[in-house]
């Protein structure tokens, strides 16, 4: 197994591990934006550039830690003057593009970047840095592919097809969860009982707890879940008609009464859909 010497610390990692994985193992911090441990690496934001040193610390190539595969013993410098300069430069460009993102400013602060010398020359949709995580999670994990990149170069933007509200979006909110700069938000519309994934305009009804009225998951997500575990939808609705809190209360009530109503279908009664 190859040995990675990173910032003077030595760790052994499995072949094909990334430098970032090695760094985390060695407790060395490398800033990341377009990286998420459950998703394939994109290498698009360039904020995790590190230097692979040659023999006796000679300067080597700058590589993205998030997807550079370790195949032999290497020495990596995160703090080399060159790596820091380029990473900070990338951050300055991003700050110029997305000046209002609190998340980005926080990361910049942690990196020691005070601000940007550059003017704003590219338009961003609510501070989007075009890292692409939302698109990947929607395609690879959720399987919906409801959003993608539209346009090229500075015109590039994350969008639903034709920038219209998309029916393929199930309002799961995974894109909002992985967004590193707070561009994507889940908005709840109390009047209609819907969740909107902003800025993609898609809306879905939310399931509501029949007991306390609290909003739960979106209907298409619940549908997708029941499909995936092959549970009859009506049965599933019955199971999921209460929020976890109310379900707990019901169960306690039932227990304390000794017999009580069966609010939850016993496992053996759940019908399994024929596939």
């Amino acid at each position, binding site marked *: 197994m190859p040995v990675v010497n990173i910032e003077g610390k030595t760790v052994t990692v499995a072949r094909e591990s990334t430098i970032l994985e090695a760094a985390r193992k060695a407790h060395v911090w490398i800033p990341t934006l377009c990286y998420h441990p459950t998703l394939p690496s*994109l*290498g*698009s*934001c*360039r*904020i995790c*550039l590190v230097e692979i040193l040659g023999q006796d610390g000679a300067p080597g190539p*700058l*590589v*993205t830690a998030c*997807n*550079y*595969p370790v195949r032999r013993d290497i020495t990596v410098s995160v703090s080399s003057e*060159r790596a820091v300069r*380029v990473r900070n*430069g*990338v951050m300055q*460009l*991003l700050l*110029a*593009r997305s000046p209002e993102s609190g998340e980005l400013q926080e990361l910049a602060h942690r990196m020691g970047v005070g601000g940007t*010398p*550059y*003017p704003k*020359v*590219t338009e961003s949709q609510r501070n989007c*840095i*075009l890292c*692409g995580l939302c698109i990947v999670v929607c395609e690879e994990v959720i399987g919906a592919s409801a959003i993608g*990149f539209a*346009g*090229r*170069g*500075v*015109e*590039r933007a994350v969008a639903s097809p034709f920038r219209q509200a998309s029916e393929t979006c199930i309002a799961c909110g995974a894109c909002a969860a992985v967004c590193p700069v707070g561009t994507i938000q889940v908005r709840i519309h109390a009047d209609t009982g819907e969740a909107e994934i902003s800025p993609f305009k898609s809306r879905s009804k939310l399931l509501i707890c029949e007991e306390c009225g609290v909003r739960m998951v979106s209907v298409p997500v619940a549908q997708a879940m029941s499909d995936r575990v092959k549970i009859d939808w009506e049965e599933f609705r019955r199971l999921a008609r209460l929020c976890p809190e109310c379900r707990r209360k019901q169960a306690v009530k039932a227990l304390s009464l000794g017999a009580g109503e069966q609010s939850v279908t016993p496992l053996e009664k759940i019908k399994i859909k024929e596939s």
Partner: protein
Amino acid sequence: MAAATATSVDKIIHSPKELEAYRNKLKAKDKKNTRIVRVCIGTGCAAKGSHRLYELFCEAAEQAGSSNGGTVVIQSKHVGCHGLCELGPIVVIDPGQILYHSVEEPDVAEIFRETVLGGRVVEHLLYEDPRTGEKAKTPGEIPFYSVQKRIVLQHNGRIDPTSIDDYIAVGGYSSLAKALSSLEPEGIIDQVEQAGLRGRGGGGFPTASKWRSCRRAEAPEGIRYLICNGDEGDPGAFMDRSLMEGNPHSVLEGMVIGAFAIGATHGYIYVRNEYPLAVEHLKMALEQARKFGFLGQDILGRGFSFDIRINRGGGAFVCGESTALMASLEGRSGEPRTKYIHTVESGLNGRPTVLNNVETWANIPAIIGMGSSEFAAIGTERSKGTKVFSLVGKITNTGLVEVPMGITLRRIIEEIGGGVQGGKAFKAVQTGGPSGGCIPAQHLDAAVDFDELTRLGSMMGSGGMIVMDEDTCMVNVAKYFLGFLKSESCGKCTPCREGIAQMLAILERISKGEGELEDLDRLETLAELLSEGSLCALGKTAANPILSTLKYFRGEYEEHIRNKHCPARECKGLFLYRIDPEACTGCGICRKNCPVKAISGERKAPHVIDQAVCTKCNTCFEKCPFGAINKV
């Protein structure tokens, strides 16, 4: 188009021996008393109406054929780009290789009567050396051709690109036969290595190393791919286009030899959709090659199978980048990925893949045919063979040229190119496309060599060569290329997308006279950031047009910033229009045409421009019949 595709065999050629027999049959046919009229239908000549000329020659040949009772065979051929695009349409008559340029429809009858039938030369259509005034009859007598060394373009302009017979008659597919009958795959790679061939697409990576890595890479199910990159996208470049249009079989032959060498099973030609003639000729060539058995199962009885398909690209510049091209072939959007795992190991569909440029593939039959040592004898120590360039810009002889590596830029520009247009002074030559740089006059004696051009801050690139004269503003040149790259960047990675936009914004400020000296430092900082931080070669080299112009023409940038003056008088607003009172006749044309009434003056008396009102629209400069308006 009445293509003379005489695929007269109905059966596949099974062995090198059969191929030779077929070739001899074709050659025997040619021994008769044949006159050949070759009409260039390359893009430049076609734009000037050469298709019509070809039709007229065909009609004339038909009429003459029926009247002379077959004693003389007259063939009218359409051929690929001849090279001297500036003076097109080009028509060459054999025997005698008499070259006529700028041929127009009314000339056809005269050429046919005098030269084709009469064997006499039509003097007024011959090339005349602008310096000596001497007439040249054949290409060999014209410096544009005589200084060149044509290996890849050897048959361009000679053979009909839609006829496999034409290609076979001049020795086509004999290198394939040689490779399959007398060489082992590793042996072919050795030959390519000994020839010292480096990729002609831009990077200059040794072709043999690429092939060897691919051959040795683990290939699940034995699938390896081979791709021909015909996504030529540099502004002003048309080398690959001319090759695909003018001699498509040479590219196919190179690919089949390459496929045998690396063990590839499938091949792709990725060609941009803006090249319809290239696509058409390649399609025809593929069908013919299949018919002859140069593609398909058990090629030439060697037990090796390979086929090629054409994929048309949408014309995105970034698809010239290998990983973006492969993404596009896979049906995804053409964006590059990081190449920490090389494409020779995991390329198209995750299989080992070799990608070479059109010109590289066309070099392969030449190397196998002449042998690696003869090929390696051409060129410099680390750059072997020849290189095709499209010579464009402010040059007298715009065209397609092929030169031995090591030739100086001066010889290309002065001897082949005939110098700068209109007797203006040479300022710089831009090589390598948007990733390249500008080389100034003091380095004109530099050799055309991969490493030498890189050392000068430019690069070989795929072969665009743009000549600039004294009226070209270098800030404007940099701005042009950055503008091109801004619209061609895919936008995936931060440095390229944001950095190019930042640099372009600075250049725009400078060319408006709003720059500051610190801007030059900012440009250099951003340039470093791009080259160090970008994901693919487009971004890594995007700053080269700025860096090379800053290196050689820093004074020009400073003049824009300090004195708000454009020395080349190209940047609008950074120079003034002034009427020369000596030359002005007082005709009043400028006054009448000025849209803002900035010009005043009595009839027949010198006029004056009110600089406070003038919007620098250039109208007076264009309209003045006496050249009395100066840019200062």
